[in-house]
């Protein structure tokens, strides 16, 4: 992997992050709704126009848009995402608190996706056309078609409200109560992981079938190697490469699904402050959180590209 190739990829990622930040910044300022007015009128009562004007002044909303944008970029260069307009809380502190929870959810969802999708995919491929293969293929189609928030709501209805096996939602820090922490993590992680499980199942099944059809497998069988050895050494090593690629790409999209799942299960990751901030037109908070999610997305993609380049040097040429 050459340094120029890496530098070019990094520059593209940074450029994209800047584009995202700019679009979000401008879009937010273009939609109607005034943070100062919202802050002062939540009780259904009239805010005093003078008080609104004063608050706008204090929040820096009276400055021209270009000046606000300049200040925002300057802050960004110094790693400062600004403060919430609602309560002056640093955006960075909010993200530092919430991001690990979102990542934990993504990680748990990914583990569930891998644990369910990969073995069942291999099994289905080995028993192609069998009952399990047919049922599993049908179920994955269904899992891919149902939106995460529907799955989430159904899980709450079944596991929490009807069977009362699990809490409906919420969060307890691991340090405070590990058992409850994992109980609360389970349902949202299933909701996050279900789509990934379905995709991994399909991918694993297809690439295992591909590998099984290769001459080297036939040769291995002819040599009299045991079935497990053929599977692990010859089939899976080749079949799992494309699966890993898909996994990397899918983890990025999991970020989007996680926001919805967090809302459904009251998991206090990045989605709650994001939704609250959009409602309150809390510009710095919205831009900060969306920027974080975008950067994560770009980062995952960058890592996948690098891994690709390492595995297959031909990628660098392209």
């Amino acid at each position, binding site marked *: 992997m050459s340094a120029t190739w890496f530098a070019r990829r990094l520059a593209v990622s940074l450029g994209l992050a800047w584009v995202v930040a700019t679009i979000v910044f401008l879009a937010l300022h273009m939609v109607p709704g005034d943070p100062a007015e919202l802050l002062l009128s*939540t009780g259904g009562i009239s805010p005093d126009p003078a008080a609104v004007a004063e608050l706008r002044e204090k929040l820096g909303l009276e400055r021209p848009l270009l000046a606000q944008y300049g200040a925002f970029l300057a802050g960004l260069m110094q790693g400062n995402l600004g403060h919430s307009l609602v309560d002056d809380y640093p955006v960075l502190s909010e993200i530092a608190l919430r991001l690990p929870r979102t990542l934990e959810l993504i990680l748990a969802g990914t583990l569930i996706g891998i644990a369910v999708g990969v073995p069942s995919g291999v099994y289905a491929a080995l028993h192609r056309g069998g009952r399990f293969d047919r049922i599993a293929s049908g179920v994955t189609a269904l899992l891919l078609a149902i939106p995460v928030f529907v799955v989430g709501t159904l899980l709450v209805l079944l596991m929490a*409200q009807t069977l*009362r096996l699990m*809490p409906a939602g919420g969060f307890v820090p691991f340090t405070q109560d590990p058992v409850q922490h994992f109980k609360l993590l389970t349902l949202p992680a299933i909701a996050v992981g279900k789509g990934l499980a379905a995709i991994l199942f399909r991918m694993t099944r297809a690439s295992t079938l591909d590998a099984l059809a290769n001459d080297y497998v036939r040769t291995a069988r002819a040599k009299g190697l045991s079935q497990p050895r053929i599977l692990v050494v010859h089939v899976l090593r080749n079949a799992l490469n494309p699966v890993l690629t898909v996994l990397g790409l899918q983890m990025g999209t999991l970020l989007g699904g996680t926001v919805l799942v967090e809302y459904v299960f*009251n998991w206090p990751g990045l989605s709650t402050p994001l939704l*609250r901030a959009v409602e309150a037109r809390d510009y710095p908070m919205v831009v900060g959180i969306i920027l974080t999610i975008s950067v994560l997305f770009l980062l995952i993609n960058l890592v996948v590209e690098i891994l690709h380049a390492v595995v297959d040097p031909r990628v660098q040429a392209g």
Partner: protein
Amino acid sequence: MTTTRRAILQAGLALPFMSMPGRAQRASGVLRYGLSAFPPNLQPWVSTGASAGTVKMLTHRSLVSYDSKGELRGELAESWSRDSDGAWVFKLRQGCVFHNGEPVTAEDVKWSIEQIAGEKSTAYMRTQFQGIERVEIPDPKTIRLVTTLPQATLPSWFGNYNTFVIWRKSAPNEPIGAGPFRLVAQERGTSLDLVAFDKFYKPGFPKVKGIKFVVYADENLRFAALQSGDVDMIEYVPWQSMSAVEADPKLKLDSVEGPFMDILFNGTKPPFNDARVRRAIAHAVKRDDIVKAAFFGRGKPLEGLPIVEGTPWYDKELAHGWNYDPARAKALLAEAGFANGFQSTLLATSQFGMHKDTAEVVQQHLAAVGIQCELQLPDWSTRVSRGTRGQYDMAIHGVSSDNNDPDGLTVVLDTSLSPTHGRSFKVDAPRTIAALAKGRSEFDQAKRVEIYKEMQRAALEEVPLVGLAWRSQGYGMDKSVMGFTNLPGALTTSSGATLEETYFG
């Protein structure tokens, strides 16, 4: 004893129920409460909605509060009366202390009132408090309020959950109150932890050791959390879930009809500057449909001003002054020169189902008398912004008045106050406004009753708003939760104060 397969299965099924969440919490004496929104802030004098009010009422105290019947009762003040010069005099209770141990003094009360009324104040009650000419302290336990105009309802100002007495040396962002609970921890957007204040002035209160507020913005999840035992009680039970709460043997529902839905008008835009058109609209809507469609039958049609039935101000005939009468609506439109109807827009929000559903029903009924409305359903922030700026023709709104006295309706009826999304925009209603002012300065109860009937008659003609439906406001709780009261009528949003009397039975 032989172990059968069935016994094992039953034991397995029983396991999760043995570890039901909640039991441990009840033993620890902490009430877990599902809030509908995280308070944008907890500033004692700035209104940030009823959920914030619930928390603030527990950490702060004012001179008075409401008892379970909705009557004013003393808190930091043990009594109040008017003296011969017409000033309101409050006598402070002995033994009240702030959370830092400092005693509550008349100086603190004076300072708090002056902060609320301050020139740069953003307090909810600022306008009212600016009607206080001066605050006098004849002795350390007495406060004398001299008002510029006679103010019959002044004591009720202190019952509002944005009017607390704060220690006068508090840091600007750390108000120190004298409520039954102290805020010990919070995570923005997620939860707040309160613990009982051991020096609270009412012996034996609060009855629980603490309250954990958990925010469930999604109404269905809030209900699910109650049903699955994650929390002991919730506010704002969604209307579609109310019967499920009633049907659940472990739960109970306490609901009252308090807040209401209405139509607001932009008085600067023809034809809504014509009272006949507004009145035609008032007669055109069949309210039953709103109660059924938007509130699952959990409400009541409102065909007049939102005056609570059973109060002295209620008049059966006036209460139905805008009865459903499409023929009359058409006649009024014809009289105003719109025999063939007209095109218009109706602003609401898609963010709250009750606003959207109400708007859809109103749209249908207006179409039936010839008024074709295009629905505009932006998000709530845009709705607020457009309402305050008068960027609409008609708008749907949901609100509750300040209290059950008709003076509490000033906030929605007095269109001469500065524009807000919760009030019609510059609609001309001089007689209504004059009657409100007259009622405010009258102390004789019999005369006040007459004045407010006159006010209702004026409003029925001038139509500063159109009442649509009372809506049920419900608290759902575990059957073991005792002592909580959903206060009557408009005071329902102040019910959080009774959490100091709540305990596990």
